[in-house]
């Protein structure tokens, strides 16, 4: 049984195997209880109950006081990771564009200021590079996930 998830640490391939009622992966094992909950036995032998919910393609998992957001990549689909693009972290309004097309920037430079949830947020260059496209102007409303600017390394 193979699944691909997008996690904070990047894309992860997860191959789980089943023995009896138990599923295992990397030394962890789990079992589905009668009522549908999942009981996890971690490598150190301790047992925990997990809670999980799927919203869209994303599994949200609560385990040991930690919450994980695991976006499942449909087999065949390509991961939604943008290449070099800088995307809007949430819906909002572009307040100010601080750079121009063609401008060289260093990692950490503020490229754009976005207003969302009554707060200002900086869009910052993740690497050194050259701005190759600016897709919105000050005043524009943007949706979450849209590419605001393109940066070429």
């Amino acid at each position: 049984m193979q699944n691909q998830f997008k996690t904070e640490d990047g894309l992860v391939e997860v191959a789980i195997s089943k023995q009896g009622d138990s599923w295992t992966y990397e030394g962890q094992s789990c079992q589905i209880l009668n009522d549908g909950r999942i009981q996890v036995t971690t490598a150190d032998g301790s047992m925990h109950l997990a809670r999980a919910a799927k919203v869209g393609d994303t599994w949200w998992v609560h385990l040991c006081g930690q919450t994980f957001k695991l976006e499942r990549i449909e087999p065949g689909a390509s991961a939604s990771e943008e290449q070099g693009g800088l995307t809007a972290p949430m819906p909002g309004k572009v307040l100010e564009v601080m750079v121009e097309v063609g401008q060289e920037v260093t990692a950490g430079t503020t490229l754009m200021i976005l207003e969302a949830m009554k707060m200002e947020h900086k869009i910052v260059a993740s690497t050194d590079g050259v701005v190759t496209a600016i897709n919105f102007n000050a005043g524009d409303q943007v949706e979450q996930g849209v590419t605001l600017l393109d940066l070429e390394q």
Partner: protein
Amino acid sequence: MANKLTKVLVANRGEIACRILRACSEAGISSLAIFADNDANSLFVELADEAVMLQGDSIASTYLDQTQILKIAADHAVDAIHPGFGFLSERADFAQAVGDAGIQWVGPSPAAITQMGDKMTARITMRNAGVPVIPGEEIEEVEEEAALIAIEEASHRVGYPLLLKASSGGGGKGMRAVHDASELISAAQGARREAIAAFGDGRVYLERLLTGSKHVEIQILADRHGRTIHLGERECSVQRRHQKVFEEAPCATMRPQLREAMGSAAVAAAKAVDYEGAGTVEFLLAPNGEFFFLEMNTRIQVEHPVTELITGVDLVREQLRIAAGQPMSCGDLMIRGHSIEVRLYAEDAANNFLPAIGKLAVFSPPEGPGVRLDTGVREGDEVTPNYDPMLAKLIVWAPSRNEALQRMRRALDEFVILGTTTNIRFLHELCDQEEVINGATDTTTIDRLWPNGWSPNVSQSIKNAALLVASCAEANGLQRRSSSNSNQDISDGPVSPFQTLSRRFP
């Protein structure tokens, strides 16, 4: 008015609206909620006796629309308006208009709001009343260019590091810490822009940034029968993005004489403006025990529950009593035990506390002794970018500070929210920090503890276990039961809150 309110309009939303509506219900006062279209399904609308929808699709045209709100108040014959916090709560012009309409304002007089609400005026008032204020300078210039020049000049006299603050500010909006002259102008522009957007007033002032100080504030209550009292302090030093996330009462390092000194200063501040109702006087408390007036909030505050839990005073209920012209019901100050509040935000603490959105697929709060939850959401609700991303205030009380921290950790462990990123884990790790355990927090605590930003401390084995759970759930079609319903009709149409259980009882 016969010393009794009969119907209160709550001019707010979310958890504070719920808090006030419940207080009205307990006091036998009927309540009227007002709500924007995108709040039609919110909990506070459900809790109100009556609810009226505001026309308009922005905050300015709904919760900030004084004319519309006053019309609703008149149409529904309310005899008081409770503004909560934020929105119109510190707008003297609104308080004035409410009074002019013959409606009781639950809060102080417009004059008191003006004198305290404009932070620059308040600094001057307090200085004149002998209350120490932070070294700094007011900037009277309104126009952008002139203001920037004045700020630049003042910066030399105030010195670095300094703090830019919006004169009409609050909640960290329009505030910028400036550590170096090179950052000054862009910080000032940002602060002014945010202040204009949030308050319609771009004026900022400069204060010396007093590092290593605690944010300590005094809760006060004043009625029309000559009583102005303080209810002890809250410490709210732990802030991220200049917004409080961890608040407690009492302050871990407070001593009785200092409490009395700060309490007396706060009462003096309130009396100086003929204060009425509940209010908070904020101070910076330096390590040497010196304290400086920061500002006065002329309204109920987000963190009021910690004071309620240690003093046994129901502050919102007292607000309603005072507004009705009754004397406050609480007796002498009697502090017991320790209370801590954390603010649960939909935000990505690992990504500079960036607000998050999503659907609360699971919202399962902790229960048991000493745990209080003030929230405006429930399972199934959606967190949208329209409003502040605070999901809930989780408040604990215990006989001692150490037990309160233990209880908070337990409660955070029990709290399950799935469907949106939250700061629960961050808050838990915060409670584990030695500095927090020792009560040695100051306003720079978070920045010092995580100078390069926080990221969760998760073992690879737990990460793997989570991946296993998701894979296993996926493999066993544990989502199938509901996903089989996900036809187009339902995904775009109304979601039914009705449930049918398949087991039948004979």
